[in-house]
């Protein structure tokens, strides 16, 4: 029996994304679940979910990516999220030349892609400044969801957070709450901090191509607009932006299968 579909599994620090593609590279299924505490358990529940969808292991080919990529025993290959995000973004945004900004749970990456190939990339270091985790911690402190925080920030202004460290920045936010600062203004300061951090990373790359935002934060319109202002360009997003890594992994699975023919 031959291979009928290609599965990309992107196990991030916060969410695990799965994309199933057919032989033509069309997306058949998208699965999203929290990564939880164990990547290994997440991988096995994804496997079970795939089986209920009728995707049998011996008729599919799996590529895993993301920080938990090594925890997927049924993957034929592990490929880094840099390569997969670039590949997936090219497909989702319909161009071979672009700069991908992926704001993930624990890291932020900026990837230059020319003719569909990664030519350069930067990632944040150990620190969580400018990542989804930073936003999540601040949203918790303000008792809102990250999406609500981003929306609320639109109405705010005039306040800034100076600490890059998430822990210190949280103390700063608590200080602002104690001072009676408006929640909208604090939310503004949080978004502002993320935008500045990402923009400073962008300074290390050529930014003369179409800029696309992927990852969990790409659905936050206000964040995306502010990022565009900071980078002096339009920052695009797409409905499947969050699945860029998984889609890229599925495309890589298809590539490596086609190579074997």
């Amino acid at each position, binding site marked *: 029996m031959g291979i009928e579909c290609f599965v990309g599994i992107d196990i991030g620090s916060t969410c695990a994304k799965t994309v199933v593609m057919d032989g033509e590279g069309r997306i058949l299924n998208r699965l999203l679940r929290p990564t939880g505490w164990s990547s290994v358990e997440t991988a096995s529940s994804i496997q079970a979910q795939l089986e209920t969808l009728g995707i049998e292991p011996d008729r599919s080919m799996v590529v895993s990516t993301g920080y938990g990529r090594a925890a997927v025993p049924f993957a034929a290959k592990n490929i880094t999220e*840099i390569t997969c995000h670039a590949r997936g973004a090219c497909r989702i945004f319909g161009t071979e030349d672009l700069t991908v900004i992926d704001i993930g749970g624990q890291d932020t990456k900026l990837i230059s892609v020319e003719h569909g190939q*990664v030519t350069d990339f930067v*990632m944040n270091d150990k620190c969580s400044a400018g990542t989804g985790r930073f936003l999540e911690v601040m949203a918790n402190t303000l008792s809102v969801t990250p999406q609500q925080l981003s929306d609320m920030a639109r109405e705010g202004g005039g306040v800034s957070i100076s600490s890059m460290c998430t822990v210190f920045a949280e103390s700063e936010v608590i200080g602002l709450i104690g001072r009676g600062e408006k929640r909208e203004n604090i939310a503004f300061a949080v978004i502002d901090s993320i935008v500045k951090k990402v923009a400073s990373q962008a300074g290390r790359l050529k930014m003369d191509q179409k800029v696309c935002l992927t990852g969990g934060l790409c659905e936050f319109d206000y964040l995306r607009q502010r990022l565009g202002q900071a980078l002096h360009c339009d920052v695009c997003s797409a409905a499947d932006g969050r699945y860029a890594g998984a889609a890229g992994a599925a495309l890589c699975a298809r590539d490596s299968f086609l190579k074997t023919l």
Partner: protein
Amino acid sequence: MADYRKMWEELGMDMENHDNLCQVLPTAVGDVFLSQENRPNAMDFWDLVISEVHGIRPAELIEAQKEGRKVFGTFCVYVPDEVVIAANGIVTGLCGGSQFWVPDGEKVLPKSTCPLVKASVGARLGRTCPFFRIADMYVGETTCDGKKKAYEILGEDVPMYIMDVPQMKREKDILKWKDEIAQFAKKVEEFTGVEITPENLAKSIHIINEKRKALARVYNCRKSKCLPISGRDALLMTQISFFDDPERCAQMCNRLADELEERIKNGVSVVSADTKRILVTGTPLAVPNWKLHNIIETSGGAVVCEEMCTGTRYFENLVDETKTTLDEQFMALSERYMKTNCACFTPNTGRIDDLLRLAKEYQVDGVIDCSLKFCCLYDTEKYSVSRALKEAGIPVLSLETDYEDADAGQLRTRIGAFIEMLS
């Protein structure tokens, strides 16, 4: 393993803590080195040395001390071994390459000091490295601010001599370094009680040149598309060469080179043909720092060259052996050492010239420029290094790391992505 406990006790070492270090080393050696396939047979020498790294060579040094010879501990490839050896002294490298020593270093140094400096100070003050106990005199140098201040602290615990390395490479700087070498020679004579003569200096210059040639022979083999040795094994050879007797070192490196040349002739490679050839540049990798090489070589790459102090900077350029007076010999030494390119000089464009040349000679697919955390000099130089390489069409990845394993996952992602990018 032979029992060295008595020796360590007599050296005044912290036995309990040192046992902790001895327990982790065999696992690390097993994971990084012994797990490799198809290694050159001649690596057996370095496998033995590293398996008893705190035993075999320290025992030899202690025997030599019993005969009245002095051991000089050094921290930099700018300190001329020739001068010490001419006076019947022995040189041993002292740079610390393990996180194990960092906490003891942090007791006296700021946390924002480079891990190599923290580990070196910690190894001495924590009494957990026999080489740091054995050395009769430490020879420091002014190559970075962290080291300069750390030497002041070490100097309270052990005899310390500092050589003032110039910060530029004008003619007067080369003359100044010659003068520093002459003054160091006086200090060495005083400390060993042996006069340095043109004859014994000529002999030691020859010995060290032969060692350089032997190391270069092994590196030459790494230029071959048929790669006969892994980067990890070559790095281990280079690291140990800082500790070993220079004549034995040359002999063992030549023995290894014989085997590698034979392998190339017979088409024996340690990697598959699609493995990406990586040149690593940046700050030194002191024993047992194998983190970077290990990640690269388990992510689809092979390290084919190190443009580092623990690499080409250690053996490139020979000292002119034709000089017959001490004055001329000191000048010949200065001229050779001042050819070594280090980020402590301004400008340091010679390093970029070296990188472009080495990238070609070693047929590399990409360069990884990695500096230790808090090394302002190499970190800053990444900008001009990366620009020059990109202009020459050579892909480059800039990294910063320390001795901890905490960032291994992130490094693996960056290095893995870089190697995928080269495919």
